[in-house]
């Protein structure tokens, strides 16, 4: 897709990301999701809407952003932290290709480690390929694409990417998104819910945005975040020795 350079960058990124200890972290959350779903399924809760709670509240708003955060900030951020990015940047590869390849790897990994487990949980919880199961899967796929653009951007902007990413996911989306209506318009979690709800049509998902708003705003946020990431990477500077 990006030619030989993009494929080489993607291959190294994939190997480095899977090989780090953090990989255990992003394999853990989906495992918990599926285990909790199985446990709930076996215990037959009284609340009829429990599949929506576990898929929407836990899957889409906790497992998905958390997995995307760990993956999105490490595909590029880890190399910036340890300095090995210099080897990559000291070649004539365009910075757009670097971001593109790393972002693609982050999206695919997030889909494998968050969206697919959410689908599996949905199939278990609702007992088959229901609208809810497919809806949250679609929301999770879209969320993977949007969250990673933001988290890759954050990892180029700051060396404390995990902290800033958590701040965004918890404070902005978690607290402000629930209290302030305006914040929902700038919340990837809400875009994912809006897309999920367009298939699921389930009021207990609490989707605040329509499909078209979610898609347009989501595309815009993704594009802007990636452009900022490329521009910042093009201005990547090495710190000199302490004066």
């Amino acid at each position, binding site marked *: 897709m990006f030619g030989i350079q993009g494929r080489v960058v993607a291959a190294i990124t994939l*190997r*480095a990301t899977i090989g780090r200890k953090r990989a255990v972290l992003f394999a853990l959350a989906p495992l918990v999701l599926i285990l909790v779903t199985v446990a709930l399924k076996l215990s037959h809760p009284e609340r009829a809407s429990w599949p929506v709670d576990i898929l929407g509240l836990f899957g889409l708003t906790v497992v998905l952003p958390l997995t995307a955060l760990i993956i999105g900030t490490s595909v590029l951020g880890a190399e910036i932290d340890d300095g090995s990015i210099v080897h*990559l940047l000291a*070649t004539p590869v365009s910075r757009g290709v670097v971001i593109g390849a790393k972002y693609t790897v982050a999206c695919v990994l997030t889909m494998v480690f968050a969206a697919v487990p959410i689908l599996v949980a949905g199939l278990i919880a609702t007992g088959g390929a229901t609208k809810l199961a497919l809806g949250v899967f679609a929301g999770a796929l879209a969320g993977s694409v949007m969250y990673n653009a933001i988290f890759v951007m954050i990892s180029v902007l700051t060396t404390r990417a995990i902290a800033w990413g958590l701040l965004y996911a918890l404070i902005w989306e978690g607290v402000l998104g629930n209290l302030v209506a305006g914040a929902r318009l700038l919340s990837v979690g809400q875009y994912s819910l809006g897309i999920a709800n367009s298939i699921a049509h389930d009021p207990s998902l609490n989707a605040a945005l329509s499909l078209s708003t979610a898609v347009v705003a989501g595309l815009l946020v993704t594009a802007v975040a990636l452009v900022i990431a490329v521009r910042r990477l093009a201005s990547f*500077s*090495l710190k000199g020795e302490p*004066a």
Partner: protein
Amino acid sequence: MSTIELSHVSRWYGNVVAINDVTMTIGPGVTGLLGPNGAGKSTLLHLIAGFLAPSRGELTVAGTASWHNPGIYRTVGLVPERDSVYAFLTGEAFVRTTAQLHKLPDPEAAAQRAIGIVEMADAQDRRISTYSKGMRQRIKVAAALVHDPPILLLDEPFNGMDPRQRLHMMDLLHRLGEQGRTILFSSHILEEVERLSGTIQVIVAGRLAASGDFRAIRRLMTSRPHVFMVRTSDDRRLGASLIGRPAVTGVELTGRGLQVRASDYGAFTRELAVLARDEEIRLRELLPADESLESVFTYLVET
């Protein structure tokens, strides 16, 4: 097409000036960028390598600006100071991968050629994580050379190397320089760069302090006055004898012992022992007082 030119280049961080109005031209051959830690060598190298924007001045590498210009890496190879490489790759895979990033027509052949130059063929199939410090430096040089660049920049390539590895790296840089490449490396260990027969640029406190033939500057350094602290069983009597020696230019009694200034390092250290024996004075301690790099470089700036 392989020269590096700086014209009145400055770089500051807020109020701190890291590089102050440096003008220099670096052509083919080996050039050492020397200076004490914190003098701005790395900053200068990062500016040249396109990893830092100059605050003021003009900087061109092979005729084009290096900042915001990934295209220069077709003519420039960079060996960064930090040891972090993709340690999970084998040496061969690392160099071949770099060749692919350069879109070379035959990455395998290019990798073999570069690995041959640094003499790492025997270890090329081992993972980089198993390499010694010297081997990591060499494989980084191979990666930087894989596209056969006319300009090679190395940031502190001798750091952490043992003397044998350092000699090997020096010889390698010389061979590359003799091929007509422009080789620029930084180092804060002036005394250890003894095999260098090229030119050096000395950076002190962000300024270009000295520039020229290495051997001439080295002669200046060895003939500078040396200061020693000596503690003996009888400082006063030894001091009186020392002041009569031609190699000694000054003696001072201090609370911590005898401070001796010598104009000739070798003659003084030879004569001191003989003198102490003849006078039956016991030598307790002999310390060079000004051997810190800062004093060496400061001396260069003052002359």
